[in-house]
């Protein structure tokens, strides 16, 4: 059976872009639930198999994939670790390392390794602590995290007062959006640009989003980053109140991959604040940074999410788009967004926005909005790349649009005919269609990078009258949960297929 899983996994490899697929561990002799006695040879073997690709053969953070990841994998030989229960400048406990291995670091390239058996993870921990002298020179000093008052005793007003007193807003912003006055200038201890966490994004807190995790980050700091330890600056009681307040800022994201449109009669709303937008359900997309022409990512991802509401009236489609961007950049380079549709005749031949445009990839129907342009304008054209539309080589056809920027978020409304006759090759949609739509976002304050979504199905046809059966419920799983289930079920199906075939 194991070899079948192996083969199924190998079959899947080309399908999963840069995902780290891991074969079942060779370290199976340890009893689950027990911590084995450290065996560095076993730990080293597991490290070389699972970790070296990113963290490097010697642990120096210079593995094959390191430059495709941002934040970069840590140089483990320096002994500076972000997520600890210990004082700033001291090494993490074995349990801290075990937890990081087990849970991964959401929002980074570090996956969770909970599929490795517990014994293997402990062997990895033992090996990691052998890579740096810091584990003997600066042994863990535990930090008192105080007592959880429980959610019933949490006082958000008090928590907010602590947030203000401690100066959190300098980096994280008044509303926790990661847009404080110092946000754009932050660098880590190696001089690489970094950004404060957008505290509303509960799904990408690296070290966990529970109040206890937040208290730990507050009191221990996140070593190697600008986030300092507040151990000497705040009481544990205040730290907990702050943590519950920060917890209250977290929002969920409904990554359904489906946006259900609503039909209106008459003109579509142009104002981003028009209440009629609320008639359409919101769909969320998480965005991903695209590697540059060198195959690298050299800046933190600043635009991470986009929400969309779709309305149509049988003639035209209106898209209300909202995404996070800590700075309002209207100069050069400016903030910009492209809505991508598949041009007429390209149905089914979906290209990945991650890699578009590559040479010989098909053109896309793009609707480009730029904050630099005259207000009220987006331009649509079928183009082979983004730059010709940006630089005006292709003039494009003007589409009605309105934009507003408020507290770290752009909201843009773009209206487009369902079946335009003024753009050669443009996507021709009808009111019954299910249309793949993709989004590409540029942050003028982070110009080396663009962020893209997956293709989202915009369902223009009306919902079934009986029940709401096909209405997508908000996803309960956060993060890559959906993707993991998808992979798991494909593995299962492939495995079953092989079993049947073998028989």
């Amino acid at each position, binding site marked *: 059976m194991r070899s079948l899983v192996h083969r199924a996994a190998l079959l899947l490899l080309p399908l999963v872009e840069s995902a780290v697929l891991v074969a079942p561990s060779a370290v199976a002799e340890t009893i689950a639930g027990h911590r084995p006695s450290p065996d560095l040879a076993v730990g080293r073997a597991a490290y070389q198999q699972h970790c070296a690709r990113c963290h490097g053969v010697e642990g120096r953070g210079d593995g094959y994939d390191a430059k495709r990841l941002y934040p970069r994998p840590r140089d483990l030989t320096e002994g500076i670790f972000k997520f600890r229960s210990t004082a700033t400048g001291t090494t993490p406990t074995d349990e801290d390392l075990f937890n990081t291995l087990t849970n991964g670091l959401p929002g980074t390239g570090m996956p969770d390794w909970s599929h490795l058996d517990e014994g293997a993870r402990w062997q990895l921990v033992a090996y990691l602590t052998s890579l740096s002298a810091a584990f003997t020179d600066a042994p863990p000093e535990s930090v008192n995290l105080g007592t959880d008052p429980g959610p019933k005793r949490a006082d958000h007003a008090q928590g907010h007062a602590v947030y203000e007193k401690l100066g959190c807003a300098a*980096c994280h912003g008044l509303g926790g959006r990661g847009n404080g006055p110092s946000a754009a200038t*932050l660098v880590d*201890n190696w001089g690489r640009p970094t950004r404060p966490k957008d505290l509303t994004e509960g799904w990408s807190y690296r070290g966990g989003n529970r109040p206890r995790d937040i208290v730990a980050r507050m009191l221990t700091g996140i070593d190697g980053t600008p986030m300092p330890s507040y*151990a000497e600056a705040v009481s544990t009681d205040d730290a907990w109140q702050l943590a519950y307040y920060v917890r209250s800022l977290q929002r969920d994201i409904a990554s359904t991959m489906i946006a259900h449109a609503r039909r209106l009669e008459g003109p579509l709303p142009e104002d981003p604040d028009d209440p009629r937008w609320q008639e359409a359900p919101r769909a969320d997309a998480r965005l991903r940074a695209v590697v540059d022409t060198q195959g690298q990512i050299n800046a933190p991802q600043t635009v991470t999410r986009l929400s969309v509401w779709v309305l149509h009236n049988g003639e035209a489609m209106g898209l209300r788009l909202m995404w996070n961007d800590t700075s309002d950049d209207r100069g050069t380079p400016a903030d910009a967004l492209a809505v991508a549709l598949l041009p007429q005749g390209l149905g089914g031949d979906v290209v990945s926005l991650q890699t578009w445009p590559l040479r010989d990839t098909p053109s896309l129907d793009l609707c480009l909005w730029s904050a630099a342009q005259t207000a009220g304008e987006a331009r649509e054209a079928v183009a082979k790349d983004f730059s010709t539309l940006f630089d005006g080589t292709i003039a494009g056809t003007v589409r009605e649009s309105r934009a507003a920027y408020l507290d770290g978020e752009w909201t843009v409304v773009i209206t487009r005919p369902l079946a335009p006759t003024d753009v050669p090759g443009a996507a021709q949609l009808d009111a019954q269609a299910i249309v793949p739509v993709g989004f590409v976002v540029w942050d003028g304050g982070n110009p080396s990078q663009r962020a893209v979504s997956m293709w989202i199905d915009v369902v223009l046809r009306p919902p079934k009258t009986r029940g709401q059966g096909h209405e997508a419920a908000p996803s309960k799983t956060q993060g890559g949960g959906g993707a993991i289930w998808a992979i798991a079920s494909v593995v299962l199906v492939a495995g079953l297929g092989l079993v049947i075939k073998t028989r």
Partner: protein
Amino acid sequence: MASAPRAQFVTLAALVVAIGCGGGKPQEASAKSNTAARPLQLAQAPEDPATAQPSGSAAITGRVAFSGAPPAAERVKMDADPQCALQHTDAVHKPEVVVNANGTLKHVFVYVQQGLEGKSFAAPASAATLNQHGCMYEPHVFGVQVGQELSIVNSDATLHNVNCKATKSKPFNLAQPTKGMKTSKQFAAPEIMVKCVCNVHPWMAAYIGVVAHPYFAVTGDEGTFSLAGLPAGTYTVAAWHEKYGEQTQTVTVGDGETGSVAFEFKAQ
């Protein structure tokens, strides 16, 4: 020459001198007169008898010259934090390359690098101070002895984080969100230099020379230094600058003698 040093930096230099010379002997006449203007900071200078332990009467003095055209000092923009900007009426520049009127280089850390092997020196009982004032570090460059208390003070009504990136001792990154907050730290091993930054205010940087003995100094407005109270011997003296790196010279001094060393840094 480079940029007109602000009054603050003049007093800052005085503090550097006061802290920097472990023996508590101000080594510059001009610095001496300036310290008088700030008795509070003078009081922080190590005058403890424990620091007088090196039993010698030799001394090494010298100056650090600078040749060539210094780079223009970078103007600090404090717009992002009104609490910082409010404390300055004049333009603030990064104190990186500061060339004195007499053609010498300021903020050079001078210390005995070799020649004291086998001797041990207890840390002074008094603390050195790193002050955050007007969203600048005071002093910008200074020295402490291994094990000496370093008192880190926030004199600003704004958040500072003190991110000291030691590699030979435990590094730390501490938040000081309120005015008057004070934290004590010390370094366990010699290191040239420990750089401290404030990530909230990215122009802030301080360099701390951590030395196992009291023979160190920092050049001020006259660009001179004095390492007094040394036992007779042959010493390698090093001069370190944040932009121009480190130079060394060797000098032999006998009891009661004063050896002279001249360093010169060139514009790049």
